[in-house]
């Protein structure tokens, strides 16, 4: 569908958000992915989240690796600078970009092939460092662009489209992110936009490494019986730990909930995430309990979704490095060169 040029026309009745942008300003080129691909729903959720949060599109840097999921940044936020890097290496490029300018919003989009196999090392270390970013893995358990090979997140015993049974253990990126110290960990499902949009919004507002694993069925190669990443399978086994209403501090809370049903999470800039509990006493503040809960549920074949962990007192890499408030890419010779007087002293000390 690449030959289709999206019309720029915008219906006058559609208004602008508080940042002065129309919803169309958050869109990108027409998707070239397969009709029904879960990834397109995630792109739509990103567009919705950014629009609702009044984010200036050009203040977002969208980075990806290589693969179907990594193509998607073309399909949203056309006014943002985008970067298709090399396979599995988006995290390092995002880290460097983030170091250059701490003021922008860094959105890393990757897939299970890109992040769980070739890029697992970079995924691990970017999370460890607490890079301030939203890291979305569009997880379909399969290599789509190369036509249907298992990925490292494919479940043990699941079947490929050609009928081959996977004999390797799956890699659990949510579990890894928790273990590695990610300060925001969530899992969504591309088929549940009402859950996914608030998760992305909360992740955007989070300071630190925010990781969202989004189960995103591949309609072409992994949507058949025997797959554990198909629409049907995920719908049947989806266990939401909580529902999330993102509240940015300005809206009044009008809905009444019974005592003990809600958890408020205050993020660093004062915004509040309001969670409606669905799974008994599940607390998103307890990293160890979250890991246990996920393992228990996973053993029963369930796919736990929702905001799984958030650290209200999070930090990021710039904080650890104690960098100046001005973006490093804006400093010039006046700020950076120690000058000739200092150099004369250095020379003198080397004689």
């Amino acid at each position, binding site marked *: 569908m690449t030959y289709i040029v999206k019309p720029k026309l915008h219906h006058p009745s559609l208004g602008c958000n508080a940042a002065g942008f129309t919803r169309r300003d958050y869109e990108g080129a027409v998707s070239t992915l397969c009709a029904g691909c879960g990834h397109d729903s995630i792109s739509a959720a990103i567009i919705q989240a950014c629009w609702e949060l009044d984010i200036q599109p050009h203040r977002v840097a969208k980075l990806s690796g290589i693969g179907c999921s990594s193509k998607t940044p073309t399909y949203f936020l056309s006014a943002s600078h985008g970067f298709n890097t090399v396979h599995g*290496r988006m995290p390092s490029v995002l880290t460097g970009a983030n170091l250059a300018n701490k003021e922008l919003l860094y959105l890393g989009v990757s897939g299970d092939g890109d992040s769980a196999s070739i890029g697992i090392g970079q995924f691990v270390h970017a999370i460890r460092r607490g890079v301030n970013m939203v890291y979305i893995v569009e997880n379909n358990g399969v290599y789509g662009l190369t036509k249907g090979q298992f990925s490292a997140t494919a479940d043990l015993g699941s079947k490929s489209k050609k009928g081959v049974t996977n004999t390797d253990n799956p890699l659990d990126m949510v579990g890894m992110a928790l273990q590695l110290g990610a300060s925001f960990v969530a899992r969504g499902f591309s088929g549940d936009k009402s859950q996914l949009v608030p998760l992305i919004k909360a992740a955007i507002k989070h300071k630190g490494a925010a990781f969202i694993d989004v189960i995103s069925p591949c309609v072409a190669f992994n949507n058949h019986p025997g797959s554990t990443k198909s629409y049907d399978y995920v719908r049947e086994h989806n266990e939401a730990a909580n529902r999330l209403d993102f509240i940015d501090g300005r809206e009044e809370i009008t809905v009444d909930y019974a005592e003990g049903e809600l958890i408020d999470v205050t993020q660093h800039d004062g915004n509040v995430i309001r969670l409606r509990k669905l799974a008994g006493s599940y607390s998103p503040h307890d990293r160890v309990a979250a890991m246990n809960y996920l393992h228990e549920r996973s053993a029963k074949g369930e796919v736990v979704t929702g905001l799984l962990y958030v650290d209200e007192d999070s930090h990021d890499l710039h904080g650890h490095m104690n960098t100046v408030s001005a973006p490093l890419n804006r400093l010039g010779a006046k700020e950076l060169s120690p000058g000739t007087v200092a150099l004369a002293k250095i020379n003198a000390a080397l004689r």
Partner: protein
Amino acid sequence: MKPITATNDFVVKFANVNGSGSASANELFAKSILRMGVPVSPRNIFPSNIQGLPTWYEVRVTERGWLGRRGGIDLMVAMNPQTWDADVREIEPGGYLFYDSTRPVPASKFRDDIHVIGMPLTAICNRTYADARQRQLFKNIMYVGALSALLGIDPAEIEKLFAEQYKGKEKLLDSNVKALHLGRDYAKEHLPGDFGLRVKRANAVGERIFVDGNTAAALGCVYGGATVCAWYPITPSSSLAEGFQKYCMKFRVDPETQENKFAIVQAEDEIASIGMVVGAGWNGARAFTTTSGPGISLMNEFIGLAYFAEIPVTIIDVQRGGPSTGMPTRTQQSDVLACAYASHGDTKHVLLFPEDPHECFDFSAQALDLADRLQTPIFVLTDLDIGMNQRLCAPFEWDDARAYDRGKVMTTEELEAGKYFGRYKDVDGDGIPWRTYPATHPKRGSFFTRGTSKNPEARYSERGDDYLYNMQRLLKKFDTAKSLLPQPILHAAKQKSKFGAIYYGSTSPAMDEAMAALEADGLHVDALRVRGFPFPDSVVDFIAAHDKVFVVEQNRDAQLRSLIVNEFGIAPAQLVPVLHYDGTPITARFIAGAISEHMQAAKVVSIDSKAAHS
């Protein structure tokens, strides 16, 4: 055997065990001679190990200022029993062996044609100090003391060095001075007074500074405005990143807020290092990584991306012996081709070849400018010999009026005014397109960066004509680079000659000395030091002006020669390789020998041959 006699012109080699604290004592020895106004050129020869293996420190004392490695040892300070036999073998006939005579060494372990000086260092230390570490450390200072007496080094100079080193640590200062004089006193009382090697005060050092290339390159990156450094530890480049950290802590901390105007990441590997540099460069920060050969191999995919997507990147490659893990603690110039054509597909990269720490400083700062100007990876190809050894060189220079060249970056105002922006369009005819930093303008100037082919407006395209436009433009850009790089330096022979020599990088001091030696023998050779790639036309003109051109380098496969042949289409027979690649720094003796042999074979009769050697 007649003992060697020499003043201000000899080579001392210290054979030690690594981890024994000998390095600082040996450096003290070298510096004390410098303070006498006599140039020295020291070299560490060390193993890939932290403790217990042999290590050597070779000091060439050279009033004439020949800073290359000479070859041959006049005085061996043999402190390591493990390497005794080889060390003793290495001494020139008539040379000297200084050793610890605490334990008797059988006569068969010596040679008849050398002069042996024994001093019971361990015994003196053991009766002076109770603490084991002190016994070890002061043994080193003690031999420096003894040598200073033998060679005639003014102890006041060494005491001054101690005073500078232990400023505010009076206890350490006193104990070092005491150890120094213990050594001196013993030597004066017990060792022969007619030692043939002498250091005599001179005035041959001048304003020059004594520094290693990694420190210099790190400082160049600080002055050049690098704010992001991502690196992975690898010998011999680690001290460069650590030097950058040290200088940043000193010069880049905001005095008011105590916040840092730099970000340094020790990455998980070289791939992540270069990835971070690519990301930072893409986002408008000056960024560099430093590595050695194995790191270059790992970085290849990203280097290709930075070339094709046109992202400023600075890579400082401190070369070591390859291939594979190779000789991690030995020197070579063997990454030339790996860097020049790094990554798959048709790629070519800009290389800079610093000859010494002074140029390591200059070229590192300049590389950051070039990377921004040319929007491409820039390689600074230094090596272990200049990177990790202190070298006497011209002092660092900077101009406070110098602004950083950020290249063609379109501003918010220009975009707002409606100036045309096509990310990969050659609008100025120099092959260099305009770029925008992310977040420059709310509606204009955004584009998608990708490693795939694209049209001039940065849209994905697999059309042949779009691809060709881009690849041709990259060639044009590469051509533009020629005039921006440091130009070659010609050292013309005293007489017109049909022989030329091309050399680069750390070969310089040995080459200078070799040229002088050849000249003295009546063999005239014009020498051209290339300092960057792509080569300017002056290189091909130089070759055309000579019948034969020697290409002197420190690798097996004549890599720079291949580059010349490949880029200029020159007949290979015109270029004679002179190759030294055993891991030790190239010597003047080697170069002069190889060139002389070839010229003699070609039956060159120089015009003033009657006046020269008959």
